[in-house]
């Protein structure tokens, strides 16, 4: 019991920067939801239910365009397909001794950021850690959306600008420390960034949406790394983040 509580607290601690970043990012979401004809309540419920930035922007523009159910389903799947990969990775990371229903609860909070902190946990993942991270992160997302829809931009540009990098900072805190210990991981990280930069510059490739780019590059590069540098069991248990 105590163990769960400790993991929950740890999750909250690491969820705080996610919440701050979410708060900043979700303002624009609220603003564009309002423009598309959603009420502030609808925009907030959408944020609470979907927890997805690109996915929600796509959703908002589809609602504005009066899209039908099939179109909504197909676009939502395509824009959010990367969560299939993240959810697969988590399925192998989560502790096997916990009741099965936890997997249904964990699925709700598979976002880029909560996934990022959850895979970085040393050893197996206790579901309570994800719940903690979500407890700290989700209010930021919903509140930012609500305020964005009701009053528009309230924070000074400079503060917004600074908060916008909070989430990226966290991603670096997940991938850089293991890169220090392993040259293979360092190479994978550097190559991933270089490939991503190339995709954002090269005509033809840069038209691909960022969510899809991530999917393609992850399948290709993680696949190549798995062939070239198969991982031995004990390495998977290495700790990453304090």
């Amino acid at each position, binding site marked *: 019991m105590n163990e769960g509580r400790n993991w929950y607290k740890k999750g909250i601690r690491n969820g705080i*920067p996610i919440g701050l970043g979410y708060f900043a990012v979700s303002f624009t979401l609220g603003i564009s939801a309002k423009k598309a004809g959603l009420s502030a309540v609808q925009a907030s419920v959408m944020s609470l239910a979907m927890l997805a930035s690109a996915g929600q922007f796509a959703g908002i523009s589809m609602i504005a365009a009066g899209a039908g159910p099939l179109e909504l389903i197909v676009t939502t799947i395509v824009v959010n397909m990367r969560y299939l990969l993240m959810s697969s990775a988590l399925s192998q990371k989560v502790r096997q001794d916990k009741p099965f229903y936890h997997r249904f609860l964990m699925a709700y909070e598979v976002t880029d950021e909560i996934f990022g902190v959850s895979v970085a946990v040393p050893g197996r993942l206790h579901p309570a850690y994800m719940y903690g991270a979500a407890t700290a992160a989700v209010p930021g997302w919903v509140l930012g959306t609500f305020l964005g829809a009701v009053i528009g931009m309230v924070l000074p540009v400079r503060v917004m600008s600074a908060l916008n990098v909070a989430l*990226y900072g966290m991603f670096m805190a997940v991938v850089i420390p293991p890169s220090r210990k392993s040259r293979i991981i360092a190479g994978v990280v550097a190559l991933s960034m270089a490939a991503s930069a190339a995709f954002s510059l090269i005509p033809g490739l840069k038209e691909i949406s960022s969510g899809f780019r991530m999917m393609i590059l992850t399948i290709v590069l993680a696949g190549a790394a798995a062939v070239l540098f198969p991982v031995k069991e004990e390495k998977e248990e290495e700790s990453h983040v304090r």
Partner: protein
Amino acid sequence: MSGKIWISLLIMFLTIYSVRALPLTLLKKEIKSPFIRSFLYYVPYVSLSVMTFPAILSATSDVRSGLAGFVAAVIFSWIDGNLFKVSIGACLAVYVAELFL
């Protein structure tokens, strides 16, 4: 209009939740294949790196402050991988950089 929006939201919620829940609930057992295990091991490193760069450069109001945030995040994570500190450090670096821009 409002009723149609609620229905649209419900459809999207059910779809996105299914995308997230299917692998977690279907892949109950430990995967034995060394290839798939290795693949899933590398997934976070590739996906988080791809998401960060070069997106971080356009996340702030100026490319230079975005770059400052990126460099600060890398340096802070190299020295001390604490998520909270790295994240706040990157924000501060951007804030300070923009005071000079």
